[in-house]
């Protein structure tokens, strides 16, 4: 077990190194630079060159990379060019909306997808099953920004139940801030539920045909107990996997949804950093996201131990 954890940890370091290097190279070979963005449309080339020098962007790529790695080893992700604050602090500022948005979206998605998926599998081939599969396919095909705009038009503009966008003004309480997350969470939850539903259904179908289910039924066990205690428990591993992957995707920033709803989360931080070519933020945010990905995957693997005693590392 300890050896497995050590292996995973080393693997994580290797992944991070690759991510760091790839991101560093990609953002720098991509055209555009932060100096032009900061100085605005009427800046002269000389102004841009002077700012590039001040930001250290005129140094050879290798020098910049070595300096960046050195910083990283000291635990320093650098300073945002535009926000005038350390990258880690910029990411920490954005963690709250992203964390709660992920939590709410997953809760909504699971609340819809898991019971419906179980029932659809249980009533395989029925009208309910067919309708569910069709709706899930449609939900998976809906662009989240479109669904977001639709929700804004109906629930925010027409009925005035929720705010259109933002994350609350100065001094907004946690309740107010969370209230701003309801619409984006519904939009993301609906889209994410499609994948979870299909996995739940497929996974349940696999186990519902197994011998031990037949045995449980032949012993006179109630259907609810058979489905929930025997079938669902054994179908959990793939469902947990897909939940984990969905969570990782959401944590890495529901980029489009955050932009449509003007949420100051990690996704919008990355988008604005890319548009402005705020290199330290792009690098730092993607590094943190990659770390979260690896950690979430690791935690899911650990959860397998809990739900399935046969699993050993």
């Amino acid at each position: 077990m300890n050896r497995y954890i050590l292996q995973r940890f080393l693997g994580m370091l290797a992944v991070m190194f690759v991510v760091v290097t790839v991101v560093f190279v990609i953002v720098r070979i991509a055209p555009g630079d932060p100096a032009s963005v900061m100085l605005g449309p009427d800046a002269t080339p000389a102004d841009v060159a002077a700012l590039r020098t001040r930001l250290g962007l005129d140094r050879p790529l290798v020098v910049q990379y070595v300096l960046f790695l050195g910083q990283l080893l000291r635990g320093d992700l650098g300073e945002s060019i535009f926000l005038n604050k350390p990258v880690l602090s910029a990411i920490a500022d954005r963690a709250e909306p992203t964390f709660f948005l992920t939590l709410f979206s997953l809760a909504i998605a699971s609340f819809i997808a898991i019971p419906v998926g179980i029932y659809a599998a249980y009533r395989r081939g029925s009208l309910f099953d067919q309708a569910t599969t069709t709706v899930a396919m449609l939900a998976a095909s809906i662009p989240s920004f479109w669904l977001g705009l639709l929700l804004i038009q109906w629930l925010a503009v027409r009925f005035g139940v929720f705010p259109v966008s933002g994350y609350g003004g100065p001094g907004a309480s946690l309740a107010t801030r969370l209230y701003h997350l309801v619409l984006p969470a519904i939009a993301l939850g609906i889209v994410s539920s499609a994948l979870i539903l299909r996995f739940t259904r497929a996974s349940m179908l696999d186990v519902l045909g197994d011998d031990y289910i037949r045995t449980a039924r032949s012993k006179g066990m109630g259907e609810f107990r058979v489905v929930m205690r025997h079938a669902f428990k054994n179908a959990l591993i793939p469902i947990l996997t897909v939940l984990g992957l969905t969570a990782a995707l959401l944590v890495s920033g529901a980029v489009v949804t955050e932009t449509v709803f003007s949420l100051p989360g990690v996704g919008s931080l990355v988008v604005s950093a890319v548009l402005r070519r705020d290199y330290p933020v792009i690098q730092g945010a993607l590094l943190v996201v990659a770390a979260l990905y690896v950690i979430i995957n690791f935690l899911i693997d650990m959860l397998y131990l809990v739900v399935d005693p046969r699993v050993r590392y």
Partner: protein
Amino acid sequence: MKVLRRTLLAGTVALAGVAALSTAPAWAQAKGGVINVATVGEPPTLDPMVSTADLVGIITQHFYETLFTFDKNWKVTPLLAETMPDISADGKVYTIKLRQGVTFHDGSTMTSADVVASLKRWMDLASRGKQAAGFIAGVEAVDGATVKLTLKEPYAPLLALLAFNNAAAVIMPAGKMENPLKEPVGTGPYKLKERKADQYIQLVRHDGYKSRAGEPDGYGGARKQLLDEIRFVPVPDPNTRVEGAISGQYDYVDALPVEAFPRLQNQKATQPVMLKPFGWPVFVMNTKQGIMSNLDARLAVRTALSEEDMLTAAFGSKDFFALNAAYFPKGYVWNTDAGTEGAYNIADPEKAKGLLKKAGSEGKPLRILTSRQYEFHYKMAQVAAEYLKQAGFAVELMVVDWATLTQRRTDPALWDIYITHSPFLPEPALTGILSEASPGWWSTPGRKKAVDAFNSEPDPSKRPALWAEVQKVIYAEVPAIKIGDFNALSAQAPKVTGVDPAPWPYFWNASVSK
């Protein structure tokens, strides 16, 4: 100087509820309240000297002030200066008296030392400051309340440059002007309380503010500070801005797509506000290198294009654009038709073909650099490409994001035409294409003669005629093609009064009815 009656307000058609929006008498305005202003995004910086971005100017003009600004007729008027400067007979020495008792947000009093340090920083850092610095021999404090600017030669645009709100000559305390700026401390009617990037910028009333006497007059005159707070909220998605206006979540919403106009009409929580005209799209030619360095090839492009079709594709209805060859629209003192006859909206690909043949550039690739950041740029590029193909150009559309465009345009090897736009500026000398250093690199004896004559004429009454000469040279040498005039759409809640439609909207005279 006989200045044509031109006010932003008069030039503006607020298509709905204009009376309620902009002309409420002072006594009807209540003190107190907060407004939420939805903007296109997060400003790249809060240092108005270092950036020419409009968004930076819109926000920072509430907490930083300049020595001069523009009144409702776009005439330069004093702001932190007590009066207009005393200019020597040879036009080389500007003596500026400062207002007394003006305090910064940190409580310190503005002195001539702060002004001298700020102007030096402006000349070092700001692109417009650098433009002026080439003409400035020295800046010095005469006494605690007087500053003297000495020029190497007369330079007429100086006051406009000192008055402009982006790459702005704002006055900062001498001890708080590091670069990058750590803490914005100005003299403006509002001060920065909190900035949460991508969430809000919260400004609160500066209690120590000393307003000019009298009534508001454009960006000049009295600044009333009626609101307790102004919050600028970045809402990057244009559709969300529209919905935010209709729902009443935002009291003022900037930069809306013109297609949203019908949706904004007859709403309870908001009304459309049209700024007509707002600005002009332009195709800038790379005169330094490549196919467009040849005058006949540039003439061929102009002859091929249908500005009308391009504007229609970009803005739809004629309610939102106007065909206009002049670089300044009617109502501006600079408006003139000089040089434009037969040189606009020609749409004659056959004639263009002849010019292209004369240039020897048939079949050579014509690289048009554009961005979808501004969708109307892209739509114009698409229409232009079709007309140019008919004229025999091998058009290559290079569609990139805005950051890439602003970088690529600095390299003459990478493009032949790039597309941009500008609001109508109060002073022609602020126009980018007139500078030899700006991408396009227009540098000819004709340009030098006309622009130098315009820039060195100190008598305001003679300058419009000299601008007409500059426009003639622009049309003769085609360093750029002005496509037309376009309008800007914003939305404003009916409960908000005291906001005059402006290219860089300001809220220090705004109030909200309870």
